[in-house]
């Protein structure tokens, strides 16, 4: 694969590959690090793959290996949510969807996020854009940790439902 094609694919599929890594790790910081490692590995191996190879499928194999290595390096006491055999089937869900479907989902999410109140948007930005820990948010807002967590959960679920609804509309999916 030519360097130009690789760069284009890495940009085009960035969020799909990051989503895959995040689904497996549940760790936003680790996802960023692993995506960088993934990009480096793909750059090193690009000459061994065809120009028209299925990029997400190739990325999936690399992502699985990287996450397995990452899990081994973690402290032994840390229990991972997903079992080893489940990782593979979870990542296949990313591969089975068309690229346009992920683009449409991202666009629907943006539109749904615009409909949120300023307060809710501020909370989501604090948590997911700035990565502020839940405990810190709770302390700053004089709320309990559980209340912040529940609010975040409800907002994410509401956004997901909104996205699903929008994707069912003609011309969106």
């Amino acid at each position: 694969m030519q360097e130009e094609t690789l760069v284009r694919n890495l940009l085009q599929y960035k969020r799909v590959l990051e989503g895959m890594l995040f689904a497996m790790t549940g760790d936003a910081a680790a996802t960023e690090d692993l995506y960088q490692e993934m990009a480096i590995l793909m750059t090193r191996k690009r000459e061994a793959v065809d120009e028209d190879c299925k990029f997400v499928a190739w990325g999936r194999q690399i992502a699985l290996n990287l996450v397995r290595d990452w899990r081994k390096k973690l402290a032994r006491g840390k229990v991972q949510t997903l079992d080893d055999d489940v990782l593979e089937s979870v990542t296949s869900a990313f591969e089975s969807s068309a690229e346009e479907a992920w683009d449409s989902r991202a666009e629907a999410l943006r539109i749904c996020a615009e409909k949120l109140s300023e307060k809710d948007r501020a909370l989501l930005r604090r948590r997911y854009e700035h990565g502020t820990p839940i405990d810190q948010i709770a302390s700053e807002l004089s709320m309990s940790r559980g209340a912040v967590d529940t609010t975040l959960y409800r907002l994410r679920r509401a956004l997901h439902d909104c996205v699903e609804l929008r994707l069912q509309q003609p011309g969106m999916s």
Partner: protein
Amino acid sequence: MSHPWDWDYLMHLHFSGQELTEEQRTALNDRLRKFPRLRRRLAEMAFEQVAMRDALQVSEAMPILILPPEAPEATKPPAAAPLLKPLPPSEPAKEPRDRRLIPVVAAAILLIGIVFWAVRGPGAPYEVVNGDVKVEGAKVEVSAAAPALFRMSDGSEATLAPSTSAIFHGRKDSARQVVEISQGAGSFKVAKAPESFRVDTPSGRVLVLGTEFSVELRKQKKGPPALAVAVASGRVRVEHAGKNLELGPGESRVFGAEGVEKVEKKDPPKEPRPVFNGVVQGKVVGKGDAHLLLSVDRIVSSRKDSSPEVAERIPG
């Protein structure tokens, strides 16, 4: 048989980096093994969290990059480098002595704007703010002399390059504004709103997810013109040859150039830096690590590669 678990909540715990109890963990893994639909939901929610950062981005208003030289000083935004290429100015920059003409020029621009507004009526999807433009309903043709600035009904602004032909469709399909460019180039400052803003060209279309970008149609020896897109802030999605591609801040690409999508350098072109190369007479008034501050009395000699505007400011 009913189950006691809220699977979405267990996935939320996983995505929040919280440890599940062994019972919860076992139940979630069993469920994921059995049900592809839940695996898909996990994938979708993971993707949404990753995409959340982009979705929550607040786009900030930025100044239009390319200004027609007639623009009054009072309304002139800060200078910035052009996105793709500098548009040719119609006249050299005016000296302060010409400032007395500014009110006259401003009045003329206002008059032109009023005339266009009157011709097209209040319901038109755009107005000409300034520039020499031939208007036929929604269709506009910018003169070869200078770029023109347009303001659309949603508050978005378009600066079209000289000799650009475009149609301002206003609301069309699901987009709040559609601008169709058949030749030329333009940069856009898009007002923030829930519905999309779209630029159609013969070589592809650009959907705006953020605020500021430019589009240029580049003629080729063979085939349709190549589409060059550059993003200054926010995000846009380019649809070309049946594919979608998102571009973020600082990114620019050429689509359809000799059948290949070409990656361009990310940094916008820089203005040439003024230099002086020669011998001067004067006093050293300050010293830094890598520079001297001079009070120049006169130029003893100046080489050809010195920038004329620098040499002109120095006495002698």
